[in-house]
């Protein structure tokens, strides 16, 4: 992924209403900043009220929502506040992720409860949020704004890394679910993306690989730029033609 300054001349995210889960750290925080910089109106969701206030304060115009996407009773209250804050929704980014057991563990040593947390956070949470917001997303699509759901995937969804069992299985499920969503809602005008941002220097990576050489890891801001480019490419072309689509910088997870 090349590090480049964003070219604002073909900005398809200006005024776009975007919701980002896990928006107070790592990639999620970088996405809040990147999308806001591109003119999007952003609502972000996270579990800790104090972190939310801090991020909302330093990213003017964003709305922070307290909620845990892994908990079913919290989904509709989150969705209500997202729609209330933004007046509708064009882009949903399911970024919040759980590693499962930390430190990572062999499947034979993984507690069921830790596996469940990975599944509820990484699969059921995105499923429930997408389902509850499908009406709003399809309304945007009908009105010509276009709508995109980006599910943040991982190469662990494809490759069998020992000790990444709960995470890898949940991300594989998320990735496959995204492919099925894509088939089912294409006719409604909703684009579904499953993208792997690559290894980044984030709290999640630090929890998974405590001894990693951080200098070898990509900065979340760089990955966020690639994902934002990919979302832009998936949005309908503005009426003025010749914007010149850029190839998505983040690599689509391949089967």
């Amino acid at each position, binding site marked *: 992924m090349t590090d480049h300054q964003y070219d604002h001349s073909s900005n398809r995210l200006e005024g776009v209403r975007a919701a980002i889960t896990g928006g107070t750290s790592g990639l999620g925080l970088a996405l809040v900043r990147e999308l806001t910089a591109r003119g999007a109106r952003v609502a972000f969701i996270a579990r800790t009220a104090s972190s939310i206030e801090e991020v909302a304060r330093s990213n003017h115009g964003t*709305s922070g*929502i*307290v909620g845990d996407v892994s908990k*079913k*009773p919290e*989904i*509709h*209250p*989150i*969705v*209500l*506040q997202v*729609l*209330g*804050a*933004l*007046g*509708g929704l064009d882009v949903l980014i399911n970024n919040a992720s759980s590693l499962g057991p930390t430190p990572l563990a062999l499947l034979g040593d993984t507690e069921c409860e830790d596996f469940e947390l990975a599944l509820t956070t990484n699969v059921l949470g995105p499923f429930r949020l997408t389902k*509850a917001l*499908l*009406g*709003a997303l*399809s*309304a945007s699509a*009908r*009105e010509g704004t276009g709508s995109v759901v980006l599910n943040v995937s991982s190469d662990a969804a494809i490759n069998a890394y020992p000790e990444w069992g709960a995470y890898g299985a949940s991300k594989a499920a998320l990735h496959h679910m995204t492919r099925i969503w894509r088939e*089912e*809602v294409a*006719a*409604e005008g909703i684009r579904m993306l499953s993208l792997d941002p690559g290894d980044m220097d984030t709290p999640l990576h630090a929890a998974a690989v405590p001894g990693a050489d951080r200098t070898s890891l990509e900065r979340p801001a760089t990955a966020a730029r690639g994902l934002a480019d990919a979302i832009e490419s998936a949005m309908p072309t503005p009426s003025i033609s010749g914007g010149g689509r850029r190839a998505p910088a983040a690599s689509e997870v391949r089967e």
Partner: protein
Amino acid sequence: MIAADRPVQRPRNARMLVVDAGGRIRHAFRSRFIDLLRPGDLLVANDAATLPASLHGVHLRSGDSIEVRLAGRPSVALDDVQTFSALVFGTGDFRTRTEDRPLPPSLETGDRVEFGSVGKLTATIEGFFDHPRLVALRFGGSAGDVWSGLARHGRPIQYAHMPAALELGDVWTPIAAMPVAFEAPSATFAVDWRLIGALRARGIGFQTITLAAGLSSTGDSELDKRLPLDEPYRIPENTAHAIRLCRTRGGRVVAAGTTVVRALEHSASVHGHVRAGDGLATQRVGPARQLRIVDAILSGTHEPGVSHFELLRAFADDDTLAAATAELEAFGYRTHEFGDSVFIEQIANRNLTRSDAALETTVPALTSLLM
């Protein structure tokens, strides 16, 4: 009829009584609803999502419990959430029938109400709509504070026929988009993504409007006579365009629910045609009203006398509706928001006078306090 007492939006055995344009009545399964539509028809549904509009709190001056049910709003704009009209009750909750609920504490203009302890939502009584239980309410704080307060402390409005407490997800329709309704636009429960895909495959149009569906019952016979209260709505450009096209080409406009009828007919009565944009439906659709736009309706099963039933009288004459009601009773159809359905085509050659405007009734001044 039998009260539907479980929050299942699309029971597999949901039934649908069909009244066709000739006044003939037959029984069908609601899952076969699409077979009643023809290529070139247009189905219009209400995509309003439902607010958790029931709030339990404390009336500060007396220290007594109060339940506030949000009932009306000036617009469907999602940042316009400070002022509402609201119905107030005393102690208790939905488990007690609304007509048996204790009266609220005696309220005065300027009284304050608090909801919840953590992340408190506060409101001030700003006035009354000619009735001690129908108040103008103003929430404190920003729009964001109101949304988080509603998310935290509000519950869906529900009634005693449903014993279990409803979650917001129970009343969130498949296409719910704009959270503006005070009660679920329940005809939309039947509109799922499979149906929308099937409509497309058969060349039947599908569009939405958004109408802030209000209360279906107040527990007070005087107030019930004023239902439905004024309801703001929004008609998207695409919908207005699709309706024009459908009518030009001889298709039928089919409404999924009374709220769709109300929005489209109000727009047409004001502008002469369905125009894109925001409006406030103040009229009552009933027997005296000639329908200008809607040709058929999918609706719940309604008891004679309630406001939703009155609207059905715009589609069919009283004899036909009496026969349909007898059929619903005889065959044990289920009623209320999670109940069975009726599909009624506008009966041809009804003896209607065109003096509907003169007979139309409105509830005056309900919104003036809110603007």
